């Protein structure tokens, strides 16, 4: 498996969709296993077999789906479930903004491509200059969508065929992925400051706000970049 830095060494615009698929393969394994977990949880929460699969294709965001299914299953109410899930997905506002100048074509094509943005595909598509690689984003996003949806279908239709992903340590794969993709970016001082600011804001807010809000507010740390004169 090549590092994202290896793609960057070839320069922007030289990657292919297949490079994105390859780069996302290791985290795709974790997405598949957690997809099964989500399917099992959603089925137990009374969501049936089809609705969780439809949700994995349309919402395509793990933490929000787990939250919605858990709340519905615990009898927490429809509005609570919807609000919790939408709050968790608000981070895709700033994440989408950071991808905006990368996506090309007519409005419907940009809207469609933006649906392949999840934390992991967006992270894999990072270039060292702070922009995104569209080929890596689409390739990684498609693989993750297939893994996540297939996992969900296995979970709802066949049950718990896969071992508990947490006992395999797969939940630790996600922060490791984000750290690995942050690593080459923070060589530059202003990006290091943005990273420290983002982490500090998230840490400070986590005890006080519901899940989802800390990441949204942490995006304000990008303003350290505006101080730097181009």
């Amino acid at each position: 498996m090549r590092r994202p830095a290896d793609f960057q060494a070839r320069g922007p615009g030289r990657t292919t969709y297949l490079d994105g698929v390859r780069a996302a393969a290791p985290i795709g394994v974790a997405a598949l296993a957690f997809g099964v977990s989500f399917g099992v949880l959603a089925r137990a929460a009374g969501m049936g077999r089809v609705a969780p699969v439809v949700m994995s294709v349309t919402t395509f965001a793990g933490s929000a789906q787990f939250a919605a299914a858990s709340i519905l299953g615990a009898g927490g109410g429809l509005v609570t479930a919807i609000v919790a899930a939408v709050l968790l997905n608000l981070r895709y506002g700033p994440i989408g903004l950071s991808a905006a100048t990368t996506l090309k074509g007519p409005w419907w094509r940009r809207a469609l491509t933006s649906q392949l943005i999840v934390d992991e595909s967006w992270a894999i598509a990072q270039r060292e200059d702070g922009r995104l690689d569209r080929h890596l984003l689409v390739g990684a996003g498609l693989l993750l969508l297939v893994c996540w949806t297939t996992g969900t279908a296995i979970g709802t239709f066949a049950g718990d065929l896969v071992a508990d992903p947490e006992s395999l340590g797969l939940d630790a794969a996600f922060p490791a992925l984000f750290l690995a993709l942050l690593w080459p970016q923070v060589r530059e001082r202003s990006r290091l400051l943005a990273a420290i600011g983002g982490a500090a804001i998230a840490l400070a807010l986590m005890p006080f706000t519901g899940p989802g809000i800390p990441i949204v507010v942490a995006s304000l740390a990008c303003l350290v970049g505006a101080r730097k004169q181009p």
Partner: protein
Amino acid sequence: MSAVWVSVVVVGLATIAIKAAGPLLLARRTPPPRAQAALEHLAPALLAALVVTQALGGDNGGFTVDARLAGLAAAAAALVLRAPLLGVITAAAVTAALVRLVG
């Protein structure tokens, strides 16, 4: 429509709109240089926040310190040793799994 389907449709439509908002609103508009510079610093800020929330976040908010933190330390060590992405992720997962096995 049952509560389950209402939640699937509403959460789905809201998420689709949130993801598409940035790419549609910034359409064909080149932001001024300082805004562009800020946009290019969104990635490190958000990635760092994702590391923190994914490694330490509890199910219902707040902090939970568990095997994920040991996995993150292993990932950092692998990065210092210049391991490829697959090696970093594997180091984190194997370490977290071993900590859970022992703990």
